[in-house]
């Protein structure tokens, strides 16, 4: 019987399997950051273990890092200790680290692909749920907890069970002005935050194939918001073109050999999925969230829903609670929702293409009075490229703040936070209560919608300008 893309990658990494036991799965790349690793390194020390493959491990500082004055010591002593702990651990165990201020530093899911370390057919893990991002290359990539980080450090493997397979097929073409972010937000609202639970989602279909690598990363990134640990897209010429010439991509004869293998990484025609969803791209429009979980979304042209319109009592109760937290009234047009802050960045939308999309909209325009706009590149490399293209000048001329690379307001572990009651339009991935700062209210949007919203001060699409 035919196999899916995920099956093929999984099978190629099984070190050992035995009836009634989980498989031992080999890990090709382990990404590390300061938040979920200190207790894992402690565990190694306590058990007198070493890092089995420091050469398959790479670390960066991203979650805690300030996005201003990065060469000064971090003001928050607890954040500083965490970052210093990572530095000590990397030095002790011989792990390559991109610290704050380094040209290679950035959000863990931005730097892997940027370096060409993320390649088709690999297994990639990180103590971070958005590791699903790397699935855009046809890698099997998923987030793990700290106990598993320790497990990978010590053994370069994980104890795994074969996940179930889900196909999300997006037929047709995305209409002009509708982006990868709108698409994934619409998918999550359709299948729900538990829709992909226990599954790897393979995104397929014409609209997916037409996406750039950046767009594919945006889609795979938010698989976890649909409950799936991993999302994947079969590698193709777009993937190869992105990879070619990157520092860690194969070259010469290796490049040809690798490509030949990568071309085999596609779901066989007779393979079956445990679950299938089909979406018509041509019906999509800019999409935003109104609630406190990523499945509570609607087209920008819609209104805040009436909780009574949800038949399922659990969803109704969740909607009631969400509207209360968000300070929204049912029936309000989403275009009338005013924001205080616009955040552009994160591992979902902090890459160069995202910044270009924002610049295109905001060029020659001004951020509305009373609105604060933060543009935070996903990596120092993205920052350098944006500056080379003059995007920083466009942002600054519009009145936006141009910052250093990091996770920033995606989760507000650094000083970039919302104040209680403040409302943001954010290109990040989570609108959970308090995610961007205690009491903060988040609407998830695409980069284009973020830019238009900054100009009008209300949730808007570029077409509204």
């Amino acid at each position, binding site marked *: 019987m035919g196999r899916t893309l995920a099956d093929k990658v999984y099978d190629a990494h099984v070190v050992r399997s035995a009836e009634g036991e989980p498989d031992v799965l080999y890990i090709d790349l382990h990404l590390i950051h300061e*938040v979920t690793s*200190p*207790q894992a390194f402690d565990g190694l020390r306590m058990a007198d273990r070493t890092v089995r493959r420091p050469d398959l491990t790479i670390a960066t500082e991203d979650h805690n890092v300030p996005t201003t004055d990065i060469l000064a010591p971090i003001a928050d002593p607890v954040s500083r200790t965490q970052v210093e702990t990572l530095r000590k651990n990397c030095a002790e165990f011989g792990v390559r680290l991109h610290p704050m201020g380094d040209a290679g530093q950035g959000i863990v899911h931005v730097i892997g692909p940027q370096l060409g370390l993320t390649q088709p057919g690999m297994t990639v893990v990180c103590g971070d749920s958005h590791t699903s991002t790397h699935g855009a290359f046809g890698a099997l990539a998923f987030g793990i907890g700290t*106990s598993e980080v320790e497990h990978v450090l010590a053994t370069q493997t994980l104890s795994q069970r074969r996940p179930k397979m889900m196909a999300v097929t997006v037929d047709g073409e995305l209409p002009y002005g509708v982006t990868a972010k709108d698409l994934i937000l619409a998918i999550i609202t359709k299948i729900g935050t*538990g829709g992909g639970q226990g599954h790897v989602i393979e995104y397929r279909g014409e609209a997916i194939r037409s996406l750039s690598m950046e767009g594919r990363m945006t889609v795979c990134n938010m698989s976890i918001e649909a409950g799936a640990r991993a999302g994947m897209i079969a590698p193709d010429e777009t993937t190869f073109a992105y990879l070619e010439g990157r520092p860690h991509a194969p070259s010469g004869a290796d490049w040809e050999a690798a490509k030949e293998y990568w071309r085999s990484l596609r779901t066989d025609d007779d393979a079956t999925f445990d679950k299938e969803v089909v979406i018509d791209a041509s019906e999509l429009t800019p999409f935003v969230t109104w609630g406190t979980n990523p499945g509570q979304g609607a087209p920008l042209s819609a209104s805040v829903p009436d909780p009574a319109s949800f038949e399922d009592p659990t969803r109704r109760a969740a909607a009631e*609670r969400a509207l209360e937290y968000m300070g929204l009234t049912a029936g309000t047009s989403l275009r009338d929702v005013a924001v205080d802050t616009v955040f552009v960045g994160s591992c979902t939308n902090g890459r160069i293409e995202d910044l270009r999309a924002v610049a295109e909209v905001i060029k020659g325009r001004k951020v509305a009075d009373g609105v604060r706009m933060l543009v935070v590149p996903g990596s120092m490399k993205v920052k350098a490229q944006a500056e080379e293209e003059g995007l920083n000048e466009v942002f600054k001329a519009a009145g936006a703040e141009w910052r250093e690379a990091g996770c920033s307001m995606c989760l507000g572990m650094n000083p970039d936070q919302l104040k209680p009651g403040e409302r943001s339009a954010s290109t990040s991935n989570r609108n959970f209560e*308090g995610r961007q700062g205690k009491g903060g209210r988040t609407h998830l949007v695409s980069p284009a919608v973020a830019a238009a919203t900054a100009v009008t001060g209300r949730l808007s699409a570029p077409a509204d300008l």
Partner: protein
Amino acid sequence: MEAFTTHTGRAVPLRRSNVDTDQIIPAVWLKQVSRTGFEKGLFAAWREDPGFVLNQPEYQGASILVAGPDFGTGSSREHAVWALQQYGFRAVVSARFGDIFRNNATKMGLLPIELPEDAVERLQDKIEANPAKEFTIDLERRELRCDEGGVQTFEIDDYTRWRLLEGLDDIGLTLRHADAITAFEQNRESWLPVTA
């Protein structure tokens, strides 16, 4: 890891769906580099509300959390499991768990019990009717029993159950296959990237 065989204790109903790990332990608590002290951060924002269920006197000392569907979604932070355990919970009941949360829980010996949504709601009704009611979780028999005789069976795969019953450390188990790992490594494609 702490072994889990049987546990008897009182329960607390958390009637919310989609309790993500950011709610279980907000990001500000993740800056710690140790593994202890997270109980103070458990549901930190919600606990500021005197009406929150964990603040009610009748639920003090409860050790089984009975929550709405999609518990533990979102961030991979294992701190969520540590916070629940350090606060005193030994098991969480829900109709659905986030995949990573469930995995983290079984690595640490916090038992995730998945029951149908209506069974979870009935359980919550029972607890609210009598918060002093005691429940016994018997992992060997895969049963959740309440003191007046109601029995609810739950599913958990044999291997995870065995590991929890024995309190076994996964790393130790995997290292028994170190030879297989070495053999696998010798056959990896030479063009696969290294970070060094």
